[in-house]
């Protein structure tokens, strides 16, 4: 296995990172880097697209690949243009739960429906962290946040299940406690020709941990105790939720160009 020092040198840039002590963002960056290192894809062929929020800063500017740091919620739409523009590029999307399932929810649905060959990591910390800890579409019912001081009157959104129903080729859920499994799942996403969606439950000690009396490490332990790889368990399921073989959008578009005799511009 590649040493941490070498991962840092090859994949990480612009120190120090902006992340709070105990944040899971760096762990996600590490897992993506290791997955790429252990896969066949060339670093020069990776484009990492992100939107707005803490999670968007995981690849931009820290991941040493081509990065496209876009507007709030639109990462999947921008990434679709990159993929259709050049289908040989390996396009990663790193998006927070608010960015991906809230403001960007429509793009998430249609990215999955199109089964476009993107690798989407939804970094789920259960609230809007960068802006102070407001309620998100992923916040549990009754949970107190900055904007639900009397408890969340709404209920949480099971993004992975929705993406699965919309037809994504590959859907999974892990947490930052499950680093080895996460690396393997990102490798599987890279190998999948289709829409890969990995929900990564990620600790936010600053906005969520503090109000619940947990530091980063304790939040990781919470993930360990409250998740299960057994689908029949009452705990949060972690693992691969779905793998289906459906037509992929970019390939279909290129195939049609070929069929009508177009000489690729």
């Amino acid at each position: 296995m590649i040493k941490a020092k070498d991962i840092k040198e090859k994949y990480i840039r612009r120190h120090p990172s902006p992340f709070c002590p105990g944040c899971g963002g760096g762990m996600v960056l590490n897992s993506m880097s290791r997955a790429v290192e252990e896969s066949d894809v060339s670093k020069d062929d990776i484009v990492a697209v992100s939107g707005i929020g803490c999670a968007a800063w995981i690849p931009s500017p820290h991941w040493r690949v081509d990065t496209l740091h876009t507007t709030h919620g639109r990462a999947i739409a921008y990434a679709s243009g990159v993929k259709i523009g050049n289908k040989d590029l390996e396009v990663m999307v790193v998006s927070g739960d608010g960015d991906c399932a809230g403001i960007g929810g429509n793009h998430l649905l249609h990215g999955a429906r199109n089964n476009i060959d993107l690798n989407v990591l939804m970094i789920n910390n259960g609230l809007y962290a960068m802006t102070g800890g407001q309620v998100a579409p992923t916040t549990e019912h009754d949970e107190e946040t900055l904007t639900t001081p009397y408890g969340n009157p709404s209920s949480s959104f099971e993004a992975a299940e929705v993406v699965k129903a919309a037809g994504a080729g590959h859907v999974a859920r892990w947490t930052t406690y499950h680093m080895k499994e996460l690396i393997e799942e990102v490798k599987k996403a890279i190998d999948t020709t289709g829409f890969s969606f990995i929900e990564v439950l990620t600790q936010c000690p600053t906005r969520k941990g503090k109000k619940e009396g947990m530091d980063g490490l304790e939040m990781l332990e919470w993930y360990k105790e409250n998740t299960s790889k057994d689908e029949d368990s009452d705990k949060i399921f972690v693992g691969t939720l779905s793998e289906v073989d459906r037509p992929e959008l970019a390939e279909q578009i290129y195939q049609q160009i070929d069929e009508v005799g177009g000489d690729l511009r």
Partner: protein
Amino acid sequence: MKGSGEYFMEGNIACAEGALRAGCSFYAGYPITPASEVMNHLSKELPTVGGRFVQMEDEIASIASVIGASWTGLKSMTATSGPGFSLMQENLGYAVMTETPCVIVNVQRAGPSTGQATKPGTGDVMQARFGSQGDYEIIALSPNSGQEMFDFTIRAFNLSEKYRIPVVLLADAGVGHMRERVKIREDVKIEERRRPEEGEKEFFDTDRKDHVPPMPDFGDGEELLVTGSTHLGDGTRDTSSFEAQDKLVRRLVAKIEDNREDIEDWEEHNVEGADLVVVSYGSISRPARGAVKKAREEGHDVGFFRPKVMWPSPEKRLREIGEDSEVLLAELSLRGYRMEIERAVPSENLHVYDRLNSLPTIDKVYSKIIEVLG
């Protein structure tokens, strides 16, 4: 793609044909009246010349994917009308900030809001200039014929490539849906974005006089940093320093201001010393020009001025005209270009013929000319 020759063609189709001729290789869009024909035509024709076509889930996704595709080295485009253009504003600003070449066609319709989808209007002129947040300059072209739908679409691509900026083709339902003679030429001048030379590593700053940095593609191994946040010359995000914000935003504005001479374009007839100059643009400039012709035939000293490039506006020339002559602005809206004309022409010299919903007859504009001349 049509071969060279003369065709009886709808304006929106001429626009699509211009895009094909300009080298467009990526189109993303969403259906909307009165712009859909651009997309309908390209969905069939673009793949045959090796271009990528995709219909997205909305206009936000359309312009987002256009910008993404542009960074893979493709000349990219979308077309829409008012409601879709409103949705695109945030990402239009992103294209300005990241200096991403792309073309946005807005076949304007009568607004505000849903308005009258099949009826022409030019109420989006200020939106094209100021619609996204923050300080910026942009280029917007105004065609008034099927021929200009073809020619200006090509120029829009050329300007966007040359200056690394989104260019808006500000058409209206009048020119978009009008059918008339269009001459397709093959010998058109095509501009390509400047690529980095060996060792050039700054893709978001330059000392060049034209203020345009070189642009590589994703996949070139440059480890590109593209961000809508304020950034340094190498693309690194800088969310707090005075120097970064000041240098970047001033250059983005200077990129247009200092290249005005190359960008500006207008037509004028008998303007010097005229008693009255009719200023008009877009589809209504056709009957307005007819009215000027009729007035001259009747012996009146009336000139005609038409900006072909709306932004940057021909403000210097407008000021000169407003000093010497009375000005009659004829436009298909109440607020379209009016504030810009008011800025250049003294209020005592300015008269307005504003029309909603449909094109006026030549006689209607002529009557207004006679009324102003007293």
